[in-house]
């Protein structure tokens, strides 16, 4: 297990280094420091203001090789944008936002709470409801409920996420007037009122794919011999489904869910943006719109780290859920 973990971490580190290189190349291919400066300072400023801004933010350095230093001087390679990029990311010194000079670490801390207050309930309720509905549909397999549920699942999967958001806000916020259309509050009880609608929209939009996947897994399990044995022993249907089928279907379900857990920290981009939740998803969307390179690279980097962490967690959870799996 330890050797496996070390090997996986090694692969993970190489992937991270690759991601950082790709990130650097992509950013400086599609944009340049002048563009970042223009966005930050405004289009009306004079060239010397842009130059000063670039100097203040370290963007006045060359990309790869600083020819201001002699070939033997290591600063020729360390006083460059590429080296600084790696140094900052690997030491978790994310620096300040290009857009407003605020500390990125502080904004991550501030945004984490609102993001988690949306993504954790979304994850928990979505999972529980998805599994229960899938069990229900699998229980009534090959009946009109099953067929109707599959049609509804396909329909919900075919609709774009943005449409759920806009129509959810219109239907529930505007027409039915049950919840505020958007907004947020840091007080838990007040926050619940604002989070109800994005939660509902998020759960409904993701439910189709989840129910369909889990139903397939459950139906496969239901047809296995051990289920027939359980019934022959006199187990009730509820016990068969919850104690036997659900437990044995956990591995593929875990594959689906464990990998998503780390992403709870990076927030939900569209939901947060449309529902006015000041979380990390909103921060990312804003960084994209505002050419805020330093914030965006931090979010992409954290996303990559979390993805790798999710994969390792998935592998570990396999072993925990199924003793037959050995990580060798």
């Amino acid at each position: 297990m330890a050797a496996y973990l070390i090997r996986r971490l090694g692969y993970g580190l190489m992937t991270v280094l690759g991601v950082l290189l790709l990130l650097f190349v992509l950013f400086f291919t599609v944009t340049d420091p002048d563009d970042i400066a223009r966005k930050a300072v405004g289009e009306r400023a004079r060239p010397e203001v842009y130059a000063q801004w670039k100097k203040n933010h370290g963007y006045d350095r060359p990309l790869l090789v600083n020819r201001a230093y002699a070939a033997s001087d290591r600063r020729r390679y360390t006083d460059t944008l590429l080296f600084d990029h790696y140094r900052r990311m690997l030491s978790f010194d994310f620096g300040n936002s290009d857009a407003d000079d605020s500390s990125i670490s502080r904004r991550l801390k501030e945004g984490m709470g609102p993001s988690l207050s949306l993504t954790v309930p979304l994850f928990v309720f979505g999972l529980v409801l998805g599994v229960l509905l899938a069990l229900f549909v699998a229980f009534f397999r090959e009946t009109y409920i099953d067929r109707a549920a599959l049609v509804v699942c396909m329909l919900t999967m075919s609709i774009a996420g943005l449409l759920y958001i806009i129509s959810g806000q219109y239907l529930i916020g505007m027409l039915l007037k049950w919840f505020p259309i958007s907004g947020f509050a840091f007080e838990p009880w007040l926050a619940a009122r604002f989070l109800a609608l994005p939660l509902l929209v998020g759960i409904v939009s993701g439910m189709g794919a989840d129910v369909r996947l889990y139903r397939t897994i459950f139906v496969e399990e239901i047809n296995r011999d051990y289920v027939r044995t359980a019934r022959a022993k006199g187990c009730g249907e509820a016990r068969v489904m919850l104690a036997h089928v659900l437990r044995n279907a956990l591995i593929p379900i875990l594959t689906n869910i464990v990998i998503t857990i780390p992403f709870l920290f990076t927030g939900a981009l569209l939901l947060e943006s449309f529902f006015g939740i000041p979380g990390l998803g909103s921060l990312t969307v804003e960084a994209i719109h505002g050419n805020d390179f330093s914030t965006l690279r931090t979010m992409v980097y954290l996303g990559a780290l979390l993805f790798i962490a999710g994969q390792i967690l998935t592998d570990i959870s396999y072993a925990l859920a199924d003793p037959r799996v050995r990580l060798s």
Partner: protein
Amino acid sequence: MSGAVGRRGIMIGLVVLALAGCSNDPYPSADGNKKILYTSFSEAPKTLDPAVAYTTASHLITGNVYDTLLEYHFLKRPYQLIAALAERVPAPEPHADGGVSYRFQIRDGIAFQDDPCFALSQGAGRSRKVVAADFAFELARLADPAVNSPLAGSFAPVLGFSQFAERLTALRQADAAVANLPANVQYARAGGIAGVIAHGERELEIVLSEAKPQLLYFFAMPFTTPVPWEAVAYYDGRDGREHFADHPVGTGPYRLASYDKQYRMVLERNDAWYGRHALDAAPGSQFPGEIDAEDIASRAIDAGYAGRRLPFLERIVFVREREDIPRFNKFLQGYYDEGHIVKESFDAVVQNDSLSPQMAARGMRLDKTVEPSIFYIGFNMDDPVVGAAAGERGRKLRQAMSLVIDSKAYLELFLNARGVPAQSPLPPGLFGYDRDYRNPYRQPDLARAQKLMAEAGYRNGIDPANGAPLKLSFDTPNTTAQALLQYQFYVAAWRQLGLDVEINASTYNQFQAKVRRGAYQLFTWGWIADFPDPENFFFLLECSNAQSKSGGPNTANFCQPQFDRLYQEMKSLPNDAHRADLIRRMLALLEAERPWIELFHNEEYALSHAWVVNAKPMGLSYPTYKYMDVKPELRAQLQAEWNVPLRWPLYLALILMVAVTLPAVRTFYRERQ
């Protein structure tokens, strides 16, 4: 079975109860009857440092927290400067060497809002009186390269401004420890700006090396507000203290009570504001007395407010709304007091150029304001085909191309007619704008344009050099599909003349690079004025500002000696008949030369609810909240009427769910038995 049914019943009951208590009201009910204005912002302020803040989002806060020596009259058009923290608008005092002085007499009794930063100078005191040195300190900050003010270049005519920056830089380079001293100490060591002189506590003299009357407009912007050195020194971002860029300390009618730019910003009335206590009738502290009858008739202004002391609102709450649609929907529900129209709902809100009957029935108001802006297509006058070198031939080509662009049709097609077709660079509301003026080359006339093409030697658009349609390139700084569609509109218009115009869409930076290289023929561009003076538009066509000569903002590279002479004379004159005559002559030159095809002046449509009073927008990027008021009782009543929750769909959904599920459950159990 009965237990399960019971549990289900309880759950359904809980859901029903939860929903029964639900409401879409996003605000605490305790605030319902307070004079609070609820509004939204989409883009977070980058900074609240008045020396740097240059965006509308920042101005929402800095424009209310920081007062200025001068300000614009709320209602008068053309825009007029009035005294604010100054006792009067200063007159220029010419010097023998060509320089000019402006002496600002500062009102007595102006104090900064309470703040812990004043412990640095006042001991236990939490505020102090504003003195002339506070204005001088802020002007020094504008010059300071470390502050990096975008307006530093505009203050170059202030005597010794750039020399001060150079001395300051040299001082910091000579001794690294200097940079750690408080900014006011550093500035004192650098010797201050020669042309910024504080005569005692209440007189500030600004000496310019040359006449530049437009500089007065900058004293109506927060860039020149008094800033206490204590605030800059105290809010340094260390030991848990905020940065000055996030913690404004001003003298304005409001103070920043809460600032989370990702979520919500709250301004509270500043009870120490000079306007609430001044014994005399300071112009910036009371509602204007002269109100246009048209504004009263249209309910833009309530005449009953004339002469009353400002401000009226207790609090202004800005809620972050990143997306247009939820913002507009919340405005329709009455949860935002003011709003803007989203294009998806334009036809539902505006019909026949005014509010739709549905919206009017809700008591809503629509205010249209033409921004001091101009959007135009420019010709590169250095180009041998379309520019000055082509002589009369090029001039006629430009005139013909100008004659086929129908700005009105463009506005209707792409901008819901939100704009005024431009006849000249000058927008409405500025001195020199003539509403009856019709540019003969901006009235669409295909036949006349074709005749001009023939006179230019391009009959039916054919270039006699090669017998093919004349090929031109049109460079644009926008690559979006929507923008390309809009550019196609122009190309289709020119195609009527037989011209083959190719769109070269590029990113902003690529476009800038092309401009620097001079590699363009036609381009599209826009300008929003910093201040409402014709000089702020005509300088875009002055020769010394030509891109090819100085890298300046005259991207058309238009150089016409007569125009330049008129410009030089016009720019330093007061708004009088002579100046108006010079402007007319300049416009006549532009009319014939056609370095630009003037397209339109942007028009802003602002919506407000029946309970909002004095919502007339300024047009310039100046917040007018100190003039606004709300009627909270009417708001509460209408919000309640508009937002009664509909609960029957929930009951229906529950019944349907049971009705669909129950037969399946019964069938299943029957089969198993």
